[in-house]
């Protein structure tokens, strides 16, 4: 097992040394920067419509990625779409990780009824056909940003919980936990001080890899008519809207698709780097 404390301190330096880590980190930072600086970067409001911008091709003056069918600037929409897509991905992964690791850690460490209950809930979520669940949840709550986040969290927390639980089970058997218990540490203290820090690396790796999947899941839900509501642009929604125009106006699709691929490459390279470093078993 690598020395985790040391590796975390030297993480940035290590990332910069590894080609994979450096490329990944760079791409991730780039996308996050674009999302944060969207209003400064985009020359146009992403929801403003101009008849004359309709179907403007690639590399038109002032519209590097062209115009869409409603006469909006595709570049502005891709840049602002980064906000939606990144926000959805981070929120979903963040909340799912939080719920998943807490439940998983407690279940794995406490065992017994808590474990059985959590694991039944996990089995339940994993066996529920995800897209059908999302379709029904969206139908009950009505589509929208938070419904989308909610549906995706519901669908993904169980995977985190399962992995953290397995990790917690392993940690429970370690000697220093016995020692801590012998010294009178409380249940929560052990979970907080020993179990969670030990499962953290797995969570971070899993979470990074999940980011790309959430962005794609958003696209799939947009395709099924359940994406964020207009005029908010999201990458998945843009690709879904552009699919009827693939032959006539491919730029409507290519811009957001390239953005997803770049983000995904970045996140995955970085995730790979983390995994190779922290947790080669995943």
């Amino acid at each position, binding site marked *: 097992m690598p020395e985790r404390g040391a590796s975390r301190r030297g993480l940035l330096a290590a990332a910069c040394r590894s080609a994979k880590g450096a490329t990944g980190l760079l791409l991730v930072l780039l996308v996050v920067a674009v999302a944060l600086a969207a209003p400064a970067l985009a020359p146009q409001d992403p929801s403003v419509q101009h008849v004359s911008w309709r179907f403007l091709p690639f590399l038109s003056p002032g519209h590097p990625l062209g115009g869409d069918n409603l006469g909006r600037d595709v570049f502005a929409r891709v840049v602002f779409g980064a906000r939606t897509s990144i926000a959805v991905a981070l929120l979903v992964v963040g909340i799912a990780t939080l719920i998943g690791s807490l439940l998983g850690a407690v279940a794995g460490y406490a065992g017994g009824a808590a474990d059985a209950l959590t694991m039944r809930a996990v089995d339940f979520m994993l066996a529920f056909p995800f897209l059908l669940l999302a379709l029904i949840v969206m139908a009950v709550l009505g589509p929208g940003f938070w419904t989308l986040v909610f549906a995706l969290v519901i669908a993904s927390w169980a995977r985190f919980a399962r992995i953290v639980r397995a990790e917690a089970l392993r940690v429970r058997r370690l000697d220093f936990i016995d020692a801590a218990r012998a010294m009178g540490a409380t249940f929560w203290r052990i979970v907080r001080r020993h179990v969670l820090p030990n499962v953290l690396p797995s969570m971070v790796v899993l979470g990074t890899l999940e980011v790309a999947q959430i962005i794609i899941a958003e696209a799939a839900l947009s395709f099924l008519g359940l994406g964020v509501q207009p005029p908010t642009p999201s990458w998945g929604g843009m690709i879904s809207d552009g*699919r*009827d125009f693939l032959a006539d106006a491919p730029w409507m699709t290519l811009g957001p698709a390239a953005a997803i691929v770049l983000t995904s490459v970045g996140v995955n390279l970085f995730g790979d780097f983390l995994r190779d470093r922290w947790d080669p078993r995943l």
Partner: protein
Amino acid sequence: MSLEDLPPKRFLALADDYLRRYALSRRAALRGALATAATVSALGSTASRGDTPRKGGTLRVGRVEEPDSLDPHKTSLAVASATMGYIYESPARRDDDGKLVPALAEGWELRDGNKTLVFHLRQGATFHDGSPCDANACVFTVKRMLDPATAAPTAYLLGAFDTIEAIDDHTVAYKFKQPFVPVWVGLTSSYCGILPPGPVQKLGAQFGRNPVGSGPFKFVSWAPDSGIKLARFDQYKAGPVPLVDALQFAQYPEDSTRVAALQSGEINAIWSGQSVPLDRVRSLKRESDIQVQQRPSLSIRALDFNESRKPLDDIRVRRAICHAVDPQRVIALALDGNANPAHGPLPSAMPGYDKKVDQLAYKYDPDQARALLKDAGVQPGTTLHLICNDSPSIRQSAEIVQAQLKDVGLTVTIQSMPIGQVVALTKKAEHDIYLYTYTYFDPDILYPAFDSKGSLNRDFVADPDMDRMIEASRVEFDDAKRQALYDTIQQKLVEEARWAPLFEPLNFAAFDSSVQGAVLRVDGEIDARKVWLKA
């Protein structure tokens, strides 16, 4: 003069007229598109000059939807009704323009104070299994349709039905409790197609998947791998025997795939409902080996205001929105030009339409809109919630509206959902603005849409004056008086800015170059009996 005293001829004329208006518009009412009889000559058919019709071949059609059942008493779905129109024969049919024409019955007359409709059925008509399609079959069919155990969703089409009686083998009497003006709406639809007693009893629940009728095509198969297959019924008696050997319907839920299947020659035609995607009409028209037909429909898309809530209870705010939204822009951007602007509560091709609303309609004028909003004390940034269905053209229209209202300082949040939720949520008044989509056959749509008791009323206005006029128009049989009422109602609705009309959609069909003789009907369907395929 009561309906019972009308000379039967007048009554039939009235019923016929009702049907024509119905047929002009018959389609999924809230979402589909109704067609108008306006300009069929300008459209022509796919027949090219100098070719002689030829028998043979399989016509393969791609559609966006698939029927739920092909049992006429177990479905209410438009695409099922269209499909059953090829399999079953009703006493009468409608032609391409919605006019009443004989089918199984070669004639009919009214008796008993217009309460009994007697059909004289054709001699020698049989079902696809060879059994006779006669008066007994009619009796069996109607009894089954009205039996509560059948739970037929379209039983309402028969209105206040009393009983059915076979006078002899080829004469049958449909008896109503009172004179029923919309009688032909039901009796020409495939929901009232005549069923063979033998197969229905033998097949039970399986009948909907193995239909037997007496229509121009007999059922061959309905399987997941090949869609619905029908074959020409050579003993067809009620009209021209089809030219094509077979008719095949396949479902392509995704627009891009459906169009690709036509382009790659896997199917010959796309029609029915929203099957031709509006966004692809332009590129399809450009292709030399694809024929596109279009025809105006009798539907309207409009912004309906919930007046039970602030600030839309204020006429100045509603007028401001009417001034702020430019229908031409919606049509140009969201529909790629494939629609006509709407001006009032009724589509311009509907009987009863008042031309005067053209002048009364609010002109696009954002400055005026801003002034009105200021006058009404509406703060810039006020948020309005818009609910609309999730078809691409509707959602995109909503986006244009959103952008235009943002221009005058109103923030619009959009919620686009499947039609089922839209209907349910707007009924609970959970909207400020509802992108209303209706398709109807008669100015009587004013009752469901604008009367305070109307089932489709989504503006929640209780105006006793308006109610009185609308209700009077429903029982007024004098054409001129009824029109006068319609005119007043329409003008009042426009003046009070009860809704902001957007556009009247068009219907489309697309064919490859082998398809001949196809004419887009007023209801957006194609009469496949007349279609033939070039070798």
